[in-house]
Structure formats: structure tokens, C-alpha cells
């Protein structure tokens, strides 16, 4: 059975680019436009891995990770941050919130696909 991956990003273009790379690898794709939508989707669907932006309106990515991880049910859900930012201070913040990976845009499709495959199979 193929993995279901949720892509959370306010940019439609990024959702398409990430979605195209992952669906070519046989994964099922769900999309959300901000942290609020993303959290709702996590709580209502069976999701194997999340790829999430940091800077988004309404609720940012790190805030979403922190809120999702408060629920023990999602403690093991792998969430990778995909962002333009690379400051180690911010990476540490995401790690403390419960994220399990960090990708700096522009992303390399092959690297992202193999990381998502590995995490979704855990």
C-alpha cells in the first residue's frame, strides 16, 4: 500500500512541485494551505508523513508541529520542514517542537523523495 503524504504550504506552486515529485514515486498526496488546515487534515485523515513549510499565514509550520505533537497519537508522525530558511536557531526550534527533518529550498527532488520514503516506512 502506498504512503499518504500531506504537503502543507501556502504556495500553490510549491505544493505542486513537491506533490509531483512524491506522486511520481507512487505516493498519495494531500494538500493544505496553512498550519490550521494542515492540523485539521492530520487529525481527520490517515497520514504517513508530512512535508511542511515554515512561514505561512494563520498558523506557521513550527506552531503546527508543536500543536500536533501535543497529542500523543501523533508523536511518531514524521514531519519534515521544507523552507527557504536555514538558520540553525530556527532548525533547533523545529526539532524541539517535534519535527524530524529540515530541507532548505530549492529542494532536490531525489533527496526529498528518499527521505519521505524512509520516514513513511518507519
Amino acid at each position, binding site marked *: 500500500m502506498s504512503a499518504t503524504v500531506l504537503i502543507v504550504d501556502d504556495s500553490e*506552486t510549491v505544493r505542486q512541485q513537491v506533490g509531483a515529485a512524491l506522486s511520481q514515486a507512487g505516493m498519495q498526496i494531500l494538500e493544505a494551505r496553512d498550519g490550521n488546515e494542515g492540523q485539521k487534515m492530520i487529525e481527520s485523515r490517515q497520514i504517513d508523513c508530512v512535508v511542511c513549510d515554515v512561514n505561512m499565514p494563520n498558523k506557521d509550520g513550527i506552531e503546527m508541529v508543536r500543536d500536533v505533537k501535543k497529542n500523543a497519537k501523533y508523536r511518531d508522525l514524521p514531519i519534515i520542514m521544507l523552507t*527557504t*530558511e536555514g538558520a540553525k536557531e530556527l532548525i533547533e526550534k523545529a526539532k524541539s517542537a517535534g519535527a524530524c527533518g*529540515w*530541507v*532548505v529550498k*530549492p529542494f532536490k527532488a531525489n*533527496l526529498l523523495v528518499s527521505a519521505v520514503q524512509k520516514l513513511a516506512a518507519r
Partner: protein
Amino acid sequence: MNQKAVVVVQSEFTQALSQLIECYSGSPPLVCQPDEAKQTVEDGDGVLATTIGFGDETFRGSLLMLASKKTTISLSQSNVTSVTDWFGELANQLAGRLKNKLATYGVLPQLGLPVTLECSEISVRSQNDDTRLWQIESNEGRLVVLLRLEVPDDLEWKRADETVTAEEGSLSLF
């Protein structure tokens, strides 16, 4: 205006701009700061303008980027359904690169969200010392970028020796 800090930001910004466009056009673009204060891009199909703000408690700034729709589509390297969204994402990636470079000086500004407009024609003008223009000639066409900074006189930035940012395109799992 703090000229020393402004020079630091402008120098890092030039690098960020050049690296970003190279990443999407496949070869290093020609980046210059034109003598003429007024700049524009032209295309019968329309021009895009996107802006994004950034700052922290010590300074703030904004960037404005112009390109024709044709140039923007060429830079995308894929079939984007929303060219305005893609152009906003490009500005977001430029601001993110600048932020990563400023992190080496211990500065970590917050980034705003990009706002993109579609125009029939638009030009930008650099009128003050706090505003600078860049003109980028790439394989995909011309871009014009304006950077505005407000940096207080007493602000001092020093480059850190250690690496404080992850590289563009890098992936790390915790």
C-alpha cells in the same frame, strides 16, 4: 542611515540574488546596479511585481522584484498553474537567502509573506540612500529588484566564525 550595515546587507543581497537566479536559469546571471535611477521591464503579456518585508527589533527592510510574465514562467522550469504565486515564492526564496546570509552576523529577521501584483506596466525608482536597485540579465530575461533598508546608526554587525545556517538544497534528518 548606518552606511556600514547597509553595505553589508547590499553585498550579501547581491550574492543571494545572483545565486538564486543561477539556481533557476542554470548559468550565472549578469547582476549590476544601474546608474540610472529608474528601471522597468517590458512585456506585452504583462509584468509581475512582488514585494516582501523583513526585519527584527533593530532594523527593517523590504524588497520589490519586477519581471515579465514570460521571464517568470521561464525561470519556473515547470508548468506552474499560477505565475503570480510562483513569482511570490521566488521573492520568498530571495528573502530567505538574505536571511540565511544575515544569520552569520547574528541577525535573524522575521520574513513577511509575499504580495504579488500583475501589472500592464510598472517602473521603480531609487530616490534615496536607503534604496538601491539591481538589474539582472539572465538567460530567461531581465529582472529588476529594489531593496529598501532602515538601519539605525548605532547598529553594529560582526560576522561570526562558525557556520550558523544550513545550505540551500540541503536535507537533514534529526
